[in-house]
């Protein structure tokens, strides 16, 4: 008899304990709070400051005292988007270079990653070694990797010309890889080298979640390797690919490190990607208002593209 008493007391006490401190309800908020505060400090507030900067004439005359900078409304945007002026033309040129660069790098990175993952899906000796080897460019620090390329691409002492001209005699005279139009292709190759292992990693992980039974069933039904790849692998990898291509697109379009390390602060016109173009307008020409306006335009462009992309891919997947 006496033993039941405490239990009953506990049962009775339980609802009142639940009512006592409202911690339970607050816990989720408290848990996300540090993230929210940091997100505000690191991303949102600087972004809002950047948007504000784009409406003021923040040139060298005002950087020591921002509040004095005159409000110019949309003037910075007008300068950036006036495609008959030098600045507008240069921005448009930089935009087209970035688009072309992104198409080439993302397309080939996906293709290389897909091919390598497909080949390495079947077990064979040395598979682990190859996987590790393929991931090396991704695991190297960006600066170390790209600066090595810049040494290799030097005209006189570079490894690339040494192999192509002196050893293999494919080319008669040593071309420049880091100036003129070749600079674009050099930059694209370096970026491809750096980003395809990520595509490979993601696709490989995605492929491992496809059950073997599906392939076996398809094989029993007489599907060829190509048909299996097309209908099973690609089909089941779709969610992975949707995210992968979006990430690669955003990273590549915004790429700053590759041109900056390869060419320095002012790349040749053929390799003038949008991020470094904005950097030049801000830090080299000391016109932070104009740089900020270009950044906002870039942000808008990326938001629109990302929004459309997600809308289209989601609609398709819902239909499927």
């Amino acid at each position, binding site marked *: 008899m006496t033993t039941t008493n405490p239990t009953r007391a506990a049962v009775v006490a339980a609802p009142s304990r639940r009512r006592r401190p409202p911690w339970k309800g607050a816990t989720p908020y408290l848990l996300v709070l540090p993230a929210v505060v940091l997100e505000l400090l690191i991303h949102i507030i600087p972004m809002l400051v950047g948007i504000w900067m784009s409406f003021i004439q923040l040139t060298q005359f005002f950087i*020591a005292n921002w509040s004095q900078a005159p409000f110019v409304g949309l003037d910075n945007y007008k300068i950036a988007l006036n495609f008959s002026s030098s600045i507008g033309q240069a921005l448009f040129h930089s935009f087209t270079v970035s688009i072309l660069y992104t198409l080439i790098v993302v397309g080939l990175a996906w293709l290389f990653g897909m091919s390598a993952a497909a080949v390495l899906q079947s077990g064979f000796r040395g598979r682990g070694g190859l996987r590790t080897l393929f991931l090396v460019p991704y695991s190297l620090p960006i600066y170390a990797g790209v600066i090595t390329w810049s040494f290799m691409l030097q005209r006189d002492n570079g490894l690339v010309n040494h192999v192509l001209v002196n050893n293999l005699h494919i080319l008669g005279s040593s071309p420049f890889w880091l100036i*003129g139009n070749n600079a674009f292709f050099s930059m694209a190759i370096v970026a491809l080298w750096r980003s395809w292992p990520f595509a490979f990693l993601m696709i490989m992980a995605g492929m491992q979640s496809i059950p073997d039974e599906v392939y076996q069933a398809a094989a029993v039904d007489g599907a060829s390797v190509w048909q299996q790849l097309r209908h099973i692998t690609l089909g089941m990898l779709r969610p992975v690919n949707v995210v992968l291509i979006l990430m690669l697109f955003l990273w590549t379009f915004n790429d700053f490190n590759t041109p900056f390390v390869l060419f*320095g602060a002012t790349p040749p016109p053929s390799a003038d990607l949008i991020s470094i173009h904005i950097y030049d307008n801000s830090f080299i020409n000391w016109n932070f208002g104009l740089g900020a306006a270009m950044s906002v335009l870039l942000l808008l462009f990326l938001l629109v593209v990302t929004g459309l992309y997600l809308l289209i891919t989601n609609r398709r997947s819902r239909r499927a």
Partner: protein
Amino acid sequence: MKARLISTVVTVLAVSATAACGGGGASTSSSSGASKTLTYWASNQGSSLQADQAVLGPELAKFQKQTGVKVNLQVIGWPDLLNKILGATTSGQGPDVLNIGNTWAASLQATGAFVPFDTKALTAIGGQDKFVPASFATGGVVGKPVTSVPLYGLVYGLYYNKKMFADAGLQPPTTWQELQAAAAKLTIPAKNQYGMVLEGGSYTESVHFAFIFGQQNGGQPFDASGKPTFTSPGMVSGVKQYVDLVGKDKVVNPSNVQYKNGPEAPGDFAKGKAAMLMSQNNADNTLQADGMKSTDYGVVAIPTPSPLPAGGKDVASFVAGINLSIFKNTKNQAAALQFVKFMTSPEEQTILDKPFTALPVVKGGTVNFTDNKAEADAFAAVLATKAVPLPLVPAESEFETNVGNAVNGLLAEAATGKNVTTTEVKAALQAAQDKMAAAG
């Protein structure tokens, strides 16, 4: 109840985050305030940041002994210096005293971030009269108190390899035509030997030569009202004179257009891959580090075309060098002025000019960075009679980047075999000028 608790927690956290930021700021200012400590950003003048620290360390200790003011030294590499200064200007969190490239003086003056050296401040550092006038003139725009005073003087000279010239039976050139002829004679691509070496990927070098050769051809980058005139015939001819070394004259290894780091071009000269080098006098450091003795090379003024084009001036350099500025947000201006006085004193100049291969910027100083008297005389003469300051206008830094990059682009075209004509030079300079107009 719940909402109130959450809002309280948010407020507490937000306040503590702000307080943390405030605390950081306060501690920074107190370190440069009450305890009589100055922070000094020195530019990299010697062969490495460590070497500069070794040179400046004992001098700063001497200053502390004399005045009781401790100086925290940070040596900053050239690629980072301007960005760090702009960052400090924007945030108001900077050093007390800093070195600047003197060509930035007018542009940085416009930011208002530096203490103007008015009469009182000038008296505190020993008076304007102690400085070499040409060097002092680089401190800021005409008609306003300067915001920087000269520290180390540099000018361009034409270095030539004595042995290569003697073997070819050549004398150092006295006209541009003689330079072209000598360079052509000494260019033997099969032996990987060229008449001249350039730092053709560096926009600062390119704009310096655009200015120097522009002056020789009667051009001015800015008119009297401060408007850019990059496409004036003199500027176009000047740029063409420089680009032609790679294009028409073919006396430069085309690979030079990739050179953008200080030691590359002097390195080629030291290794005998090029017979001539147009460089500032601090190239001595690299040449000697690469194994040359000061008797192996001679220095003359960069020659002008003969006869001098209409309106042209006998200019062989601009007044290059490093200036000292005091950051306006300093909590210790008196100590900062003391430090500037110390660094620009004749005694310190004599000590520092040697390791930093600099020309004296105070009167009565002698060139002591080289034991080669002819070289010392040549550089001193260029500074005294053939050097003019770069344009002292706020847009100077934009002039440097826009024109410098335009010239780099032309050099790259010339190196890849394109024929760079006057029309193309003019178009490139026009594009550079358009950027100035729209951005300003």
